[in-house]
Structure formats: C-alpha cells, structure tokens
C-alpha cells in the first residue's frame, strides 16, 4: 500500500497532464478552424493587432536593447580570457537572432499579452458577458479567441524581427562606445555572419511563440473559475503555461533548425 500510493498519485498526475494537453489541443484546433470560417470580426482583429503588436513595442524594444548591450559586455569579458574579444559582433548577432530575440520577446508577450487576455476573458466569463455573447448569437470562440490568436500569429514575428534589430543595435552601441570596436567593421561582421536561416528561424519561432501566448490567454480565460479568485488563477495559470510552453517549443524548434 505504501508503495502503491505514490504510484497512484503519479498515475493521476500523468492522466491530468495528458487530459489537459488534449483539452488545449481541441481548443487550438477549434480556434484555427474559426479563423478560416465566417463570420469574421475585423474590428476585434484590428483592436487585437493594436493591443498585441503596436502597444507591445516599447517593452519589447527596451528588453532587446538592454539584452543586446549586456550580451556584448559578457562576450567581450568572456572572450578576453582566450583572446577572442573580436567575436563580439558575430556572437551578439547569433545570440540575439537565433535565441534571445525570439525567447525574450515571447516571454515578454506572455507576461504582457497572455495575462491581459486571460484576465479580460475570465472577467467577461465571471460577469456573464460570455453568456451574453452566446444569447446574442455570437460565438465567443469566433469573437474573442480567433481574432486575438490570429493577431498574435502575425504581430509577434514582426516584434521578434524588430527586437532582433534593436538587440543587435544595443550590442553595437556598447561595443563601439565602450569597447573600442570600429562601427563599420562591427556592422560588416554582423551582416556577413548572419545566415538567411537564422532570420527565418527567428521569425518562425516568433510566430509559434505568439500563437502559444495568445492561445494560453484565451484558454485559461474561457475556462476560468468563479469570482476574483477564479480570475486570478486563470491569469497566473495562463502566464505559467505560456512561459513553459514557449521555452519547450524553443528547445524543439532549435533542434529542428540547427541540429547537425
């Protein structure tokens, strides 16, 4: 009995995780199917583009700028140990475009957008606004979920692209102002070293991470419990799930793009 009890708990936990994955998969499939079937809600889509894309620019830009700068300092200090200070432009470019750009933008979107979507939809559920939508012959999946996920799929790769450029600029600024690099040489090394697939992988990662972030916000919002506690749990759960899934997806995508 003592042996079986932990095994039973493990089994239950495994079943819970698998059933949750199944529910998320069904939710995702329903969302994608609503994206391609009318009616469409252009106003909701435009608002989502604004909220997820445009209004996330400051936080994404600042995150990328400081990360690029810090990366340049670290690589310079680390490279100095084996006389490899000159690789700063190349490593900053690769680090930002392949990994830090998409991951940090994804995580910032999870913090900013996933939480906001989950809290908004959960509050709508608690205050019966979702029920009201249904009674007004409007499918909440079509009206709330599909526009947000579609907007994230489109805007987050753009944000990642912008983040990559700003991050590289952060490294450039630190390297040329503080570390004595020649501006023209720094830029030439950056451009020469980056490959087309680095950029493509970065944008694809952005697309996937954006989809995960918006989907998790909508899923947890739609399945929120009652009251303020329900809204709080939905918000917290959505950010946790989005962050973990983004990091896991990053690992898988990196393997797909760059495994030798």
């Amino acid at each position: 009995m003592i042996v079986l009890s932990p095994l039973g708990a493990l089994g239950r936990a495994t079943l819970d995780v698998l059933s949750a994955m199944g529910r998320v998969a069904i939710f995702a499939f329903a969302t994608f199917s609503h994206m391609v079937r009318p009616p469409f809600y252009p106003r909701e889509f435009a608002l989502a583009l604004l909220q997820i894309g445009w209004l996330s620019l400051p936080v994404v830009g600042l995150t990328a700028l400081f990360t690029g700068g810090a990366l340049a300092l670290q690589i310079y200090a680390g490279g100095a140990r084996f006389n490899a200070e000159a690789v700063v432009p190349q490593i900053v470019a690769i680090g930002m475009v392949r990994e830090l750009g998409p991951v940090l933008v994804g995580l910032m979107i999870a913090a900013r957008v996933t939480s906001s979507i989950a809290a908004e939809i959960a509050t709508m559920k608690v205050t019966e606004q979702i029920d009201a939508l249904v009674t007004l012959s409007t499918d909440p999946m079509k009206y709330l979920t599909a526009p947000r996920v579609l907007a994230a799929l489109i805007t987050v790769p753009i944000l990642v692209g912008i983040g990559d450029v700003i991050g590289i600029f952060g490294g450039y600024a630190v390297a040329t102002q503080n570390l004595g690099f020649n501006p023209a040489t720094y830029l030439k090394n950056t451009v020469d070293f980056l490959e087309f697939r680095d950029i493509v992988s970065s944008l694809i990662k952005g697309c996937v991470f954006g989809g995960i972030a918006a989907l998790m916000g909508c899923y947890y919002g739609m399945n929120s419990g009652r009251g303020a506690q329900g809204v709080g749990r939905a918000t917290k759960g959505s950010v946790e799930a989005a962050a973990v899934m983004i990091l896991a997806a990053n690992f898988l995508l990196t393997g797909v793009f760059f495994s030798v």
Partner: protein
Amino acid sequence: MIRFEGVHKAFGDNRVLRGVDLEITKGTSMVIIGGSGTGKSVALKCVLGLITPDQGRILVDGKDSRAGDHDAFLARFGMLFQGGALFDSLPVWQNVAFRLLRGSLKRPQAEAREIAIEKLRRVGLKPDVADRFPAELSGGMQKRVGLARAIAAEPQIIFFDEPTTGLDPIMAGVINDLIREIVTEMGATAMTITHDMSSVRAIADTVAMLHDGVIQWTGPVGQMDVSGDPYLDQFIHGRAEGPIEAVR
C-alpha cells in the same frame, strides 16, 4: 410556448434540477421564484442552451431547443442578465445594437444606432448616454441599458434574470414597471426568475415556485396568496419557520 419536460441537471453530486415540468403560454409573463441556489438560473440557461440538461427536454413552440439552427433559435430571444453583462469595451449604443451590427439581423451602422437610441429612450435613458461606456453608468442605468439590449431586436421571448437585484426599492419599482409595460406592448413571452416578491406582483401573469429541484407550485399570480401551499406561503411571507429549511 415554452415547455419543460422532466428536465434534470446535476453538477457533480449536486442535483439541482430533479425533473422540472413547466409550461409557459405564449404571450404571457411567467415568474419563477425560489430560494437562492434552487436552480432558477440553471433552468433559464437550459432553455438558451448555455447549460445542457442531463435528462428531459425543453420545447419552444413544439420544437426541441437543441435541434436545428441554434443561431436562428437564439435570434428569437432577448435576455436581461442579473449583473447587466454589458460589454465593457463597447459604448452603450453598441451594446444595445450588438445584434443589429452583426449576424443575420445586421443593419447599416447609422440605422442600428438610431434603433439603439430609440430603445434607450424607451427605457428612460437620454440619447447622450449612448456614447458613454458601461463603467460610467450607475447600477440602475446599467440595468436599463441591459433591458434596452434585450428588446433591441424585437424578440418574441424575453428572459429576465433577477432584474432588480442590487437596486434600491424605488429603482427596482421603476424597472419592474418598465418590464411589465414592455412585455405587454411587445406581446412577448416573458420568463423572469427572482426572489423579489415586489417583482413577482408587478411582472407576473403566472408564478411557478421551484424548490428541491422540482416545481413545487404553479398558478396565476392572483392565487398565490390563497394557494394553501405551505412552501409557497413560507416563501412569499419570508418566514424562517416552515417546511423550507432555513440555515441560521
């Protein structure tokens, strides 16, 4: 006509509806009363398909509420929610005209706005309210906007979920009178759930009392006070003593 036939609904071990049989005649106003947690809202949501009954069926004009085109089915209904359930992100007029701005009942925006303002006027609100957001309105005004939204598309059936909850007695009286007037002039079938007895007397043609998951009593509002049903008597007089267990 709306007809409940042996409707059951449970949430886990909690058997909320245990075989509800009820008939609401076309063009009449039925008020369902009962204590908190007796399943009044569940019964109402079962009709709209927001909750699926475990057993039994609900017929609307002889057709099963779950059969056929659900959007077309819902287009016949208007509903006033307990808390208003107004969409925070939309101005008042777009809340009222929500159904008229999309879907099968879509109208040009200017026409939808005109109808919304007319409906707002009907519920006693001035046109300048139209461009405000729900959060800028008092509880009574939000109820009125909810009422205007419920009637905006001229529905054949209107549901009112606790229409006076959270309002002061005077505002509650105003909302009750408005509901009665609107239901009468539209000739709509109305189903109201409440535990406010002043609402019952103002709105109802017929009354049904839900207790222990079944309809305990039903009859015309005029017979409510002389029904002789101990459950109904205890409820309408608000007595702690009686067959309905009151937790102290």
